[in-house]
């Protein structure tokens, strides 16, 4: 079934696969380490929060490498860019909004509870990773434009 999302040239597809392959092993390593750490050293957060943060770090590595390599720039990539990046950014905004709402309603926001990270910590630090990624994307586009390449 064709999704209708096209527009990547071969080089961009190869780059995406390459960094996704690397990110897969990064996430496995982090996942194993996190599981071992939580089991034998210290459960630093609930399973959901720790796994979210592990995946976020891997996705950040993948995102940064692909954005800086130009896998998401160019006219050819515009449709996929919107289809992939928009839900991630919107999801992060929704999470942050829910945490802000919690703070407004209850008057306090626990980032750490009983020595463990909460989901609010994840929603607060999520933008810390997304903002530099977005900046890297626009820096890449600016450089491409300055060099006369399609952006």
């Amino acid at each position, binding site marked *: 079934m064709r999704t209708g999302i096209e527009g990547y040239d071969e080089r961009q597809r*190869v780059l*995406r*696969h*390459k*960094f*996704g*392959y*690397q*990110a*897969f*092993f990064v*996430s*496995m390593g982090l*996942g*194993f380490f*996190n*599981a*071992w750490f*939580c*089991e034998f050293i210290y*459960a630093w957060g*609930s*399973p*959901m929060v*720790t*796994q*979210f943060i*592990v*995946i976020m770090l*891997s*996705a950040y590595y*993948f995102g940064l490498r692909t954005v800086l390599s130009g896998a998401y720039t160019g006219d050819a990539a515009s449709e996929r860019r919107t289809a992939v990046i928009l839900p991630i950014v919107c999801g992060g905004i929704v999470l942050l909004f829910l945490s802000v709402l919690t703070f407004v309603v209850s008057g306090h926001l626990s980032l750490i509870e009983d020595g463990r990270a909460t989901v609010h910590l994840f929603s607060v630090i999520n933008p810390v990773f997304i903002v530099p990624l977005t900046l890297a994307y626009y820096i890449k586009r600016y450089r491409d434009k300055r060099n006369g390449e399609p952006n």
Partner: protein
Amino acid sequence: MKLELETLDERQTLMTRKYGYQSFLLLIALVLINAFICEVVYVWAEPMVSALFVVYIALLYFAIRTQLRVGIGKIKSKWKFALAMVPFALIGGVMGYAAATPGEAGLIADGKATINLWILFFLFWAILVVAAVIIRRRRDKRDGNQAERSDGR
């Protein structure tokens, strides 16, 4: 003793990376689903056990796809290949024995999956990967024989 693994050509490298990328996306989806289930529905296993299940399901997809389509880690000699499988068979046997013998906990304890259940899953995982390797080797041999017959040899 060198095992003399075959080096990957460009097509194999590209396909391996493609399946790695797909496995990464699968891993993300599995982590999200697992986190949702553990947090909202039911804590079905301890964090380490659930993480092991999630990672090995993604790894199973990667291993099966690459073995069947790419054949990474091909060992040229048949007897050397059999010799390389011995450590895996030994590890699998020891782990299977540990899982099968009654110990502190069975496969399910207090309504949660235990590490013993994961060990059985790992055995299942290893069997599937070895089966994929054998299928690919037989297919390569058959394709090689067909190519020889078409050449008139």
